């Protein structure tokens, strides 16, 4: 039986992003933003949107594949896929699902995308709850535990408590993301530099660890990547970023209701990460490009630890700005600014930045650019991760 693996079978051949906006500032509807990103990704790949034959998304994206297929004049729709679960837990999973469809011959050219206009629709940071709530929400909302920041903060509190990790480690993550955004013309936080004093003085969103700058933005925008078979990608317009591995899921009962997951202080990558590296036949030290989804900086901390990029006992010492920036840093992190400072594009901007890094066309270009790890949506279930590589990693 042939190896059951995605390793090297598909590649990202095109990337597209809209202008990124602060929430409420997009002049375009969410669906139009989706179309713009997909058309741009096709242009980048040198293909016609008529030749897309599949759509994969996540986070309950409202721009559904069949409508997109009709709008774009897709000749034949072969794959239409939504990744369960909220937040950006599905960002890498959507790329993985697109790859699985392409690798198995179900489809030939699948776009993985996300479109999100928090201005047109509800903001994640405001409760749009009804007067009466049921299910799990009934055990949380009446106590003022409503927004994502509030729903995840207690995991971070306990993790920091268990490992003796200090606020400064989270500050280092935020400073690096804001630093990288300053050169990125499409970063919403370009021109808004962050330093230690500004971070320390920023207001609490949720004590004890979530200052304002530990929390992602709320934005409007869309992003898309085109996934094709590896042997086709090598003859296309742009240098391919090969999909070396994807992992998705959660550990034992990590979606147990009312905070009853057995492994509580976790980003829930602990079981997934070994599978990911095994499929890629790579290890954490191979990853020159590190992109980690920031819903909150505490989620980044746990993701990095659970992917073996940092040891918990070294987190206080290692997670400082100088180690995390592209200029001389040992582990440049979120080199386009990420969810904190580029755009909360539900993490797909991190996948796109990884492709630019592998191509060698990033604004904050890293030198060791053959392999990228992207970690998506810490603390939700399911989460997902992705390893991309250049031809040299095949």
């Amino acid at each position, binding site marked *: 039986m042939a190896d059951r693996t995605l390793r090297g079978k598909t590649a990202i051949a095109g990337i597209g992003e809209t202008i990124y906006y602060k929430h409420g500032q997009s002049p375009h509807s969410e669906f139009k933003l989706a179309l713009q990103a997909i058309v741009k990704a096709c242009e980048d790949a040198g293909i016609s949107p008529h030749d897309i034959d599949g759509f994969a998304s996540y986070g309950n994206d409202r721009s559904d594949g069949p409508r997109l297929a009709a709008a774009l004049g897709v000749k034949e729709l072969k794959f239409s896929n939504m990744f369960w679960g909220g937040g950006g837990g599905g960002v890498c999973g959507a790329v993985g699902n697109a790859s699985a469809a392409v690798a198995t011959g179900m489809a030939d050219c699948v776009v993985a995308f996300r479109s999100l206009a928090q201005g047109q629709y509800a903001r994640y*940071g*405001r*409760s749009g*709850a*009804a*007067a*009466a*709530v*049921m*299910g*799990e*929400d*009934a*055990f*949380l*909302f*009446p*106590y*003022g*535990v*409503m*927004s994502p*920041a*509030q729903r995840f*903060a*207690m*995991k971070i*509190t*306990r993790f920091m*408590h268990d490992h003796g990790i200090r606020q400064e480690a989270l500050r280092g993550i935020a400073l690096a993301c804001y630093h990288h955004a300053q050169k990125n013309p499409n970063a919403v936080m370009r021109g808004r530099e962050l330093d230690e004093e500004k971070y320390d003085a920023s*207001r*609490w*969103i*949720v*004590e*004890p660890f979530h200052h304002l700058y530990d929390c992602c933005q709320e934005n409007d925008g869309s992003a898309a990547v085109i996934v094709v078979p590896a042997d086709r990608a090598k003859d296309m317009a742009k240098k391919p970023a090969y999909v070396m591995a994807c992992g998705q899921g959660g550990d034992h*009962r990590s979606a*147990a*209701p*009312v*905070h*009853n997951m057995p492994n*509580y*202080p976790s980003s829930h990558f602990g079981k997934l990460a070994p599978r990911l590296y095994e499929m890629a036949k790579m290890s954490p030290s191979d990853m020159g490009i590190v992109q980690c989804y920031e819903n909150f900086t505490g989620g980044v901390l746990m993701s990095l630890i659970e992917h073996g990029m940092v040891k918990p006992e070294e987190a206080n010492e290692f997670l400082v700005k100088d180690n995390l920036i592209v200029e001389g840093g040992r582990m440049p992190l979120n080199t386009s600014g990420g969810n904190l400072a580029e755009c909360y594009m539900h993490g797909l901007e991190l996948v796109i930045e990884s492709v630019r890094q592998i191509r060698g066309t990033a604004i904050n270009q890293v030198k060791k650019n053959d392999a990228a790890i992207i970690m998506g949506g810490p603390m939700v279930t399911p989460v997902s991760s992705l390893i991309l590589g250049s031809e040299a990693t095949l």
Partner: protein
Amino acid sequence: MSTHYLPEGLPTPSSGPDGLAAPYWEGTRAGKLRIQKCNGCKAWQWGPEWVCHRCHSFDLGWEDIQGHGRIYSYERPHHPVHSALNGHGPYIAVLVELPAYGNIRMVGNLLGDPLQTVPIGGAVQAVFEPHDSATPPYTLVQWRLV
């Protein structure tokens, strides 16, 4: 003077059309703290579900328990995300672990000074907070340090 920890106007709990959580909410109205216990394998289970996660029995019972726990984690939200909380200031939510009942966990508010230091591991006792004038009336379970 309100006897409620948080301001009026927050979403109110409903057991929903499927009735899964109804025994819990009926219990709190009667001053009883009640969680699921599997009649097959005797495992405790929280939050409520239709099947036992351990032995897959659908014969799940509800058992009254003592409201003794310890603080497993906490948070102090400052930013108001709901209009009912505008201008209210910080408050404390705690995640309470119940060692006598399979370490199941419950979320509530920690009564007292909202700026108090919260001890992880601290012993807490359940306190019923009735909302009698709500339509329909309901009772929350809050926690205080002992």
